[in-house]
């Protein structure tokens, strides 16, 4: 993509846009919420997305994927964000497949990646232990015993954690809380003995779970990557996840901006279209500006992933922080400019605000990523 979409990418973006508008409009998400659907997304939709090739869009062809790259995935995520479509794209593809591709053994990749690509395996990664994302602070313990490891502790805000077939768990095998070294990734069955899963009811009605591990036993084969080297592997995965989520937030924020602009052009007060008031015009122009800047960053960051640029971590933090703040601002302004109707549950703009706040915090808030950006750039 670089900074302009090529023909193939334009086709992908257009077909993703049409797909979500047709198969997963906001009304579909609203229905999931209202019916208190326990899965939290439509399995039928996920099958259809897999048929489009999107579950395997970044997976190498050798493992049954499209090997199309992250720019393509970013485009699909942006369009998914536009209609607030709920899917396991982030948990299963960005995190799960991403971790396997980064650190998995040949056996692990051959066994799992093709199933992810065909849409038959749900995977996620369990990282958080507190209210703020900070993987280096992991304390969750994995003790080695004669047969392998024993996992005990709690993981929280695990995306799609209550329905994932397998869960990759970040656990400490040595060192202390705060150390980057001594963390290891383990592959655990969703149905493992000793694992209790509870779906957390979040304001965005999306899937996050609390996972309680009570003496969960895994064998040595369950280790992904090097023992004690889990953080380094995961950091690259989380960079991709941050960029992917920024793309999704860009799509959602663009949708809010468009619906707000439409409203400014139809709502009349004082005998005028409210969009003719200069105070609103300037704020609309400012939102447009922030979105244009955000778009440039998302395109730059997604391109950097496919080009294996040495700036990826920096761009990931830039994207997550900058687009997160844009999304925060646009959703706030979206409600304000809609006035009373924007405060009603019936109107979509509130759904976008709820989703935005959770997405802003997932994989690190803007403040977290500004601090990280400063460290990476030696400020």
């Amino acid at each position, binding site marked *: 993509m670089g900074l302009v979409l090529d023909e193939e990418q334009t086709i992908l973006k257009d077909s993703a846009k049409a797909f979500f508008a047709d198969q997963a409009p906001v009304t579909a998400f609203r229905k999931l919420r209202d019916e208190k659907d326990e899965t939290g997304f439509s399995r039928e939709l996920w099958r259809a997305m897999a048929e489009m090739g999107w579950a395997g869009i970044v997976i190498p062809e050798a493992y049954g994927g499209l090997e199309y790259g992250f720019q393509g995935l970013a485009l699909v995520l942006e369009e998914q964000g536009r209609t607030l479509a709920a899917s396991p794209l982030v948990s299963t593809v960005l995190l799960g497949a991403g971790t396997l591709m980064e650190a998995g053994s040949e056996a692990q990749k051959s066994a799992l990646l093709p199933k992810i690509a065909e849409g038959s395996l749900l995977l996620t990664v369990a990282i958080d232990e507190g209210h703020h994302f900070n993987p280096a602070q992991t304390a969750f313990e994995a003790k080695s015993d004669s047969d392998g490891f024993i996992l005990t502790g709690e993981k929280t805000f695990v995306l799609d954690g209550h329905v994932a077939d397998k869960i990759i768990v970040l656990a400490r095998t040595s060192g202390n809380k705060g150390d980057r070294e001594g963390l290891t990734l383990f592959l655990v069955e969703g149905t493992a003995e000793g694992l209790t899963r509870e779906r957390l009811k979040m304001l965005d009605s999306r899937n996050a779970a609390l996972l309680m591990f009570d003496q969960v036993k895994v064998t040595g084969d369950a280790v992904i990557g090097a023992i004690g080297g889990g953080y380094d592997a995961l950091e690259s995965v989380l960079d991709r996840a941050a960029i992917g989520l920024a793309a999704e937030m860009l799509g959602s924020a663009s949708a809010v901006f468009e619906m707000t602009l439409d409203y400014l052009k139809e709502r009349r007060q004082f005998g005028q279209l409210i969009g003719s008031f200069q105070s609103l015009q300037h704020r609309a122009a400012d939102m447009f500006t922030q979105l*244009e800047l955000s778009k440039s960053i998302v395109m730059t960051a997604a391109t950097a992933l496919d080009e294996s640029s040495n700036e990826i971590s920096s761009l990931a933090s830039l994207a997550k922080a900058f687009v997160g703040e844009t999304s925060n601002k646009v959703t706030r302004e979206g409600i304000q400019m809609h006035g009373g109707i924007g405060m009603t549950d019936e109107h979509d703009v509130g759904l976008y605000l709820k989703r935005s706040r959770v997405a802003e915090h997932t994989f690190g808030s803007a403040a977290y990523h500004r601090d990280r950006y400063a460290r990476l*750039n030696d400020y």
Partner: protein
Amino acid sequence: MSNLDIFREEVRAWLAENCPPSMRTPMGNDEDVVWGGRKAKYENPEARLWLDRMGAKGWTAPTWPKEYGGGGLTKEEAAVLGQELGRIDARPALASFGLWMLGPVLLEYGTEEQKKEHLPPIVRGEIRWCQGYSEPGAGSDLAGLQTRAVLEGEDYVINGQKVWTSYADKADAIFCLVRTDTSTKHEGISFLLIDMDQPGVTTKPIKLISGNSPFCETFLDDARTPARNLIGRLNGGWEIAKKLLQHERTNISAGGFGAGGRAAALEELAKEYLGTDRGEIADAVKRDQVVRHKMLERAFAQTLKRMSAETKAGEVSPASSIIKYVAAEMNKDRMELLVEIMGLQALGWSGDYFSKQGLATTRAMLRSKANSIEGGTTEVNLNVIAKRVLGLRDHQ
């Protein structure tokens, strides 16, 4: 070897021979900028020599046609010339509103005679032009301008006042927007060239908050100019003005506002003035402000690149509408942040107690306030985005 490589060799050889040694050193201050013109004084004779040599080659205006004194180079060749000049750190031979503003207008709207008369002296730096647009009663509402031009025989007679005329006191001639029809607003404006060496034209510098006086008031009292100095069609000046403004906005933003020269990096200054804690900027709040600014700068840089990539791909770039707005506000914020970082060191006015950098920052911060006023205010830019890009309507 490709033609372009051969050209590069030629340029390199010519520069080695013709660019005087002192013209390969960084400029000390504004005094070192060569603006040319009839009244120009050259403290350094090599500056004069460098201008004469570059002017004779037409390389002060590399892509203008040779028949008008330009270099006649292709875009690619001009890029090579730019790279080679950069390689030896050559100073610009000539800074000139004639080159940047009037020239492009003449090339597009001028008659053959007008081009032949006016372009070659611009290329050689023999004349210094200034721009007469704003008036006391016509700032953001530029089309409200009142300076009258009336045809009397062979001449236009001009009466009125211009303001914010950059360097008018040092200029030889002025390109001016004048009213030639009072019955209508935008359609009654014409574009005139006026020689300033006549009793009907007087200038008075305006002292700014920064202490400098780059702008003047320009008074036109029965000033005269031959009718052949009308550019474009009578009452067709607004179209030219808009084009020129667009040019000015892109120039201002792409050239970068800033303290002049290579601005020191914000994070380095923050470390120097606030100290470090384990290698990090010691003040956590200001460190966060620095990061925010650096992030915005990066987003802006990527947007400039995207805009040019979109334009190259033949797309209309909506991003272009935000450039002037973002650049202006960003630079103002940068200067305020710099003052916060440097503290009272950057709030001195003069004297040995203050460092050169501190004093320069004070002045640059004050200068930056104009960024969101000159070449279209931030408010006008937001109006343009709201109306032309977002399609919001005027208040009824």
